[in-house]
């Protein structure tokens, strides 16, 4: 069933494509190219099994469900999400995901993708935090992950290109870089403790190096089906997991530390094509 969505997309892209962002590409093609260009990357090549499974990535099942949710009239206000502006205009999804976080005039601040989605579900559709539609952030069964996967998929193969024109976008990106290197917590870790060198392993996992943009584009390509957890996960879920393992304080959703970290990490993958959705260990 997701095949339909896959086939329909490139046609739509050809018509409305923003040339600068690059062409839509099937996530498996993006991955295959990366693998070919980086034959020595232990991180990219670590799981033959996942590479083989990529054409049947279970995350693709969420695309169609997410599409239905996006266009359905929902919430107390009974409207669809077509009025939601992810930065390219209301309802314009092509290329939107790879150009976030960005500054939004209507709220006067920089928002990352999930923040923006939740903002629209609350402001347009009238959901509140108590509704599971926005309250439940994680798991393949959640509305948020279905919508995230559908919307992100519209940017597959396009280059990460978070805007830095607005001074707040630049400020958040720069703060995110400082946060990446900010040591703290019970183990004195920063993000670079584990993502500073290429080909290093924590137990069995090969870790991506942040300064290698071709490793890093895969690293930040979420949503991704996590085989080990049998669920589709988001960028924010990844941050929460790493922060928890670092023995820092627990990080909360919809908060600016998430936004700053994502501003920086998407920037660190700038110019490289996104794999949306990806499949990870």
């Amino acid at each position, binding site marked *: 069933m997701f095949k339909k969505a896959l086939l329909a997309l490139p046609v739509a892209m050809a018509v409305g494509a923003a040339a600068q962002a690059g062409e839509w590409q099937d996530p498996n093609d993006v991955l295959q190219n990366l693998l070919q260009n980086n034959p020595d990357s232990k991180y990219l090549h670590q799981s033959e099994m996942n590479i083989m499974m990529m054409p049947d990535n279970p995350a693709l099942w969420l695309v169609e469900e997410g599409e239905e949710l996006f266009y359905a009239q929902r919430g107390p206000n009974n409207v669809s999400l077509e009025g939601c502006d992810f930065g390219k205009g209301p309802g314009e999804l092509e290329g939107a995901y790879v150009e976030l976080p960005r500054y939004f005039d209507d709220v006067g601040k920089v928002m990352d993708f999930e923040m923006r989605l939740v903002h629209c579900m609350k402001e347009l559709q009238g959901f509140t935090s108590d509704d599971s539609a926005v309250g439940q952030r994680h798991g393949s069964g959640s509305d948020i992950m279905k919508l995230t996967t559908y919307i992100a998929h519209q940017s597959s193969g396009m280059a990460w290109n978070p805007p830095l024109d607005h*001074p707040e976008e630049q*400020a958040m990106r720069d703060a995110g870089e*400082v946060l990446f290197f900010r*040591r703290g*917590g019970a183990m004195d870790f920063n993000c*670079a403790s584990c993502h500073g060198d290429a080909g290093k*392993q*924590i137990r069995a996992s090969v870790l991506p190096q942040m300064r290698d943009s071709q490793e890093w584009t895969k690293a930040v390509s979420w949503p991704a089906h996590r085989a080990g957890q049998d669920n589709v996960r988001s960028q924010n879920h990844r941050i929460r997991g790493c922060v*928890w393992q670092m023995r820092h304080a*627990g990080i909360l959703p919809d908060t600016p530390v998430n936004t700053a970290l994502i501003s920086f990490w998407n920037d660190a993958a700038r110019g490289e094509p996104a794999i949306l959705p990806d499949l990870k260990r």
Partner: protein
Amino acid sequence: MLKKKTVGAGLALVASTVLIAGCDGWLGETGGEVDITAMSAEELADYLVLETGSYRLEQEAQEGGSARDRMTQDGIQAACSLEGDPDAETAGNVIAMARESYEAPPGGARLGNWRRGAELARSGYGYRVGHRNDDHGQREPGGNCYACHQMDPAEELYGTLGPSLAGYGATRGNDSAVVNYVHQVVSNPHQYFPCTQMPRFGRNNFLTEEQIAHIMAYLLDPASPVNQ
């Protein structure tokens, strides 16, 4: 409701912000008065961590104190928040801070039981807080050495972030100079490796002195599988 508060607090301040900084920047959820573009990246990062409700800072930390204490940097954490290796001056300062804050165990460093050390070296449990909290009443926290180091050469799952420690005691022996040195490295490693990625297991109260003694035995006891 958040929104109302922001607008209310923001309105009066927009004018002054615009006048002073010529900029309309502030973070919505922080009460409205902050121009994030007027801060240095370092100031903004600290502000984001400590003032924006991004973390559950009021949560209790297992080692005592709160999660806020964990996110408030001490001298070594602040000095080592850098990319790559520290320059000579920073390294010197960090070594000095580490020496000053090192505590030798009462009665001197000693070796415990390597079997207990083996368990502690494997266990990655402990000290995690947030959406799930590690409960030290249910399970003893460990040192998680294998996440970064090879130790027992027969063990297949190990990390490579730190150097291999296979045969560590077999090549070095375990006289008191070696035992004291290893204690310093496990407890407060920046004395020898300024800005290392290795945690300060003693200084941060992550492992007890007894646990450190067991892990040292795992490394240095001739009977330990690490040295076979």
